[in-house]
């Protein structure tokens, strides 16, 4: 097996112009989408996915990964300038970032955000490159019971993405699992297809995600007046942005510490950027001389969350690639995009097809440089564009989602599927049912069921194998711990809220 360094060097020399161009396009769209509140990394990816159908794998994946990283980066811009976090990952940035803007130091804050995002993201991608393969090599020893355990581990993520209402989140996830079993079963029966041949291979995830993410957001957006708070002013100044970039280097220990926190939180499935940013923000208290003053406009309060949220993205990719289970909505889209290119993720891929993955990851690293430059220019130029009215954006999102649903395999039926899930998702979001939980369920449903049935057939219905085989036993225990701990954390948070 070649060393990781050789792989990186090989990938670097294989990078071609086409892939780089698409990567730049992805970065630009990612920053723009992330900047617009209401459009998060997941939605940017869903909307970009149809563009990749006819691309080469490395261009497609490179573009999606670049957009994925850039969206979180873009979200910090609107958090700082408009006190409206563009994505969940930049919620913590808004506290000190916007306070800085009010003090007239918005430009410096933008510079700091750009530079810390760059450093944090870069750090996590390096960890990704080196940690991915050992994890995958270990995962190669897996049989059906272990895969079932992994699927259950994936299902356990649902408990932590469930949102405010745990039961609703779990129910949404379980419904997703159930929908995932529609189609032909392992023993050859047509289940719930109602004679429709498009359903024989199951409910396709692409239109379902278009519906649950893109359409639902469009339906929610149309009733808002504008995507951002009105009446916020910002004077642009290029020099001050660059000054901000420089300030970041004075806080380098905090940058690194936050990047480590972000990466670790990102590796844990279900946690992701929106939790990482708060975890790092809390840590930034230790790095300030005057902790209570945080939130009134301190540079540390921007450095920490920005470094962490981008690091979390790289961390999440480790689980996505090495185990083939999605840890968040965005990585679920990435996995689907991979399967559209006939790539099955999981340990097999990383051992045999490592070249397929290294090049996009190297592109992701390059995209951080593009992001740094484009981001600074973009944030300099953007201020006026954010006032696009929602009644223009929403119809456009719908058309894009429909195009994507159709183009996926050329069936009008998929557009109706998307509309069905769009309406379903809208009602779900009205009643606090988690849509991410349902998508995760939908993706994991087939895998969970098939591995369970396979185990049952191979071990003649003896399910004690799950606990007698060490790896599957450990993974199952971890899953249970992860479910219980996320429920406990949630209960604690609620109690604290009630106490306040």
């Amino acid at each position, binding site marked *: 097996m070649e060393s990781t360094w050789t792989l990186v060097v090989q990938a670097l020399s294989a990078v071609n112009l086409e892939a780089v161009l698409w990567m730049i396009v992805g970065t630009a769209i990612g920053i723009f989408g992330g900047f617009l509140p209401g459009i998060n990394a997941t939605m940017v990816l869903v909307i970009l996915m*149809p*563009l990749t*159908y*006819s*691309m080469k794998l490395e261009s497609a994946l490179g573009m999606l990964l670049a957009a994925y990283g850039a969206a979180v980066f873009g979200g910090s811009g609107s958090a700082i300038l408009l006190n409206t976090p563009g994505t969940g990952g930049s919620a913590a940035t808004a506290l000190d970032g916007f306070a800085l803007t009010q003090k007239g130091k918005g430009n410096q804050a933008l510079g700091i955000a750009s530079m810390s995002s760059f450093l944090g993201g870069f750090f996590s991608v390096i960890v990704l490159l080196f940690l991915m393969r050992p994890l995958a090599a270990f995962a190669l020893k897996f049989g059906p019971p272990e895969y079932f355990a992994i699927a259950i581990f994936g299902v356990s993520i649902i408990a932590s993405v469930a949102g405010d*209402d745990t*039961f*609703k989140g*779990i*129910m949404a996830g*379980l*419904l997703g*699992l*159930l929908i995932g*079993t*529609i189609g032909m*079963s*392992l*023993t*050859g*029966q*047509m*289940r*719930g297809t109602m004679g429709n041949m498009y359903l024989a291979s199951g409910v396709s995830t692409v239109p379902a995600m278009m519906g649950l993410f893109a*359409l639902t957001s*469009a*339906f*929610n957006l*149309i*009733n808002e007046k504008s995507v951002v708070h009105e009446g916020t002013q910002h004077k642009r100044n290029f020099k001050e942005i660059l000054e901000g970039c420089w300030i970041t280097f004075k806080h380098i220990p905090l940058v690194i510490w936050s990047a480590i926190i972000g990466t670790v939180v990102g590796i844990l499935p279900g946690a992701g950027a929106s939790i990482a940013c708060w975890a790092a923000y809390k840590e930034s208290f230790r790095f300030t001389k005057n902790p209570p003053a945080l939130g009134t406009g301190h540079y540390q309060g921007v450095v920490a969350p920005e470094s962490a949220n981008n690091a979390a993205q790289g961390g999440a990719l480790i689980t996505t690639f090495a185990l083939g289970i999605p840890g968040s909505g965005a990585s679920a889209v990435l996995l689907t995009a991979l399967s559209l290119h006939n790539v099955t993720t999981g340990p097999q891929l990383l051992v045999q097809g490592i070249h397929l993955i290294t090049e996009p990851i190297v592109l992701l690293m390059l995209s951080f440089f593009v992001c740094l430059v484009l981001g600074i220019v973009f944030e300099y130029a953007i201020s006026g564009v954010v006032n696009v*009215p929602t*009644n*223009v954006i*929403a*119809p*456009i999102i*719908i*058309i894009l989602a*429909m*195009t994507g649903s*159709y*183009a996926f395999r*050329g069936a*009008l039926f998929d*557009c*109706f599927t998307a*509309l069905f899930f*769009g*309406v379903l998702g*809208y*009602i779900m979001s*009205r*009643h606090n049912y988690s849509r991410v939980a349902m998508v995760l369920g939908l993706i994991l449903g087939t895998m*969970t*069921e098939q591995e*369970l*049935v396979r185990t*049952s*057939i191979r071990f003649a219905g003896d399910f004690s194998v799950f606990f007698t085989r060490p790896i599957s036993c450990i993974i199952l225990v971890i899953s249970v711990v992860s479910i219980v701990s996320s429920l406990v954390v949630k209960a604690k948070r609620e109690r604290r809220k009630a106490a306040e």
Partner: protein
Amino acid sequence: MKKIKFDRFISHLNVSLVIFTGVLLCAAMIYYLHVRSLPNPEDNLLFIQPCFFAIAFCGIIIIAKDVIKAAAKAKADDSEIVEKSDTDKAGRFKAFMDKNKQIILMVLCAVMLCIIKFAGFFISAFLFLVAAMYLSGAFNGKIVKILIISFVIVLILYLAFGVALQVKLPVGILGF
């Protein structure tokens, strides 16, 4: 008296949540019974059965939580129930639609999908954009602006998908 108590209870109940959860439960049950009636139930149900029972458990808890909450609130609350006046139905409908523009989008979207077969993708998309923007009051209803924006968007779509990426989109009787 009993009637008033019941009305108060209903007014605190999140009716749409209960109905929605009920519909989800029913859908899951129909699917479960359907799979049970198929051959090979022991393999087919291996996963679906526990999954269904868990859904039923969650659904019942969600509904029960809301009912208990509503009952507790109704007990604490002894205010009069305000009857909503039925005057000016048209005005109320308009106010409702102003707050629920997503319904317009959903209906238009369904209509668009139905006419795609005849009109082709690009014409339907254009009509959808114009109708959706006009009805939701974009650009203060200035139709010329809406037409131009819609045309530009469809043109970009055509160039991106039809020309650059060679993705096949549905053609209508007009041939594009």
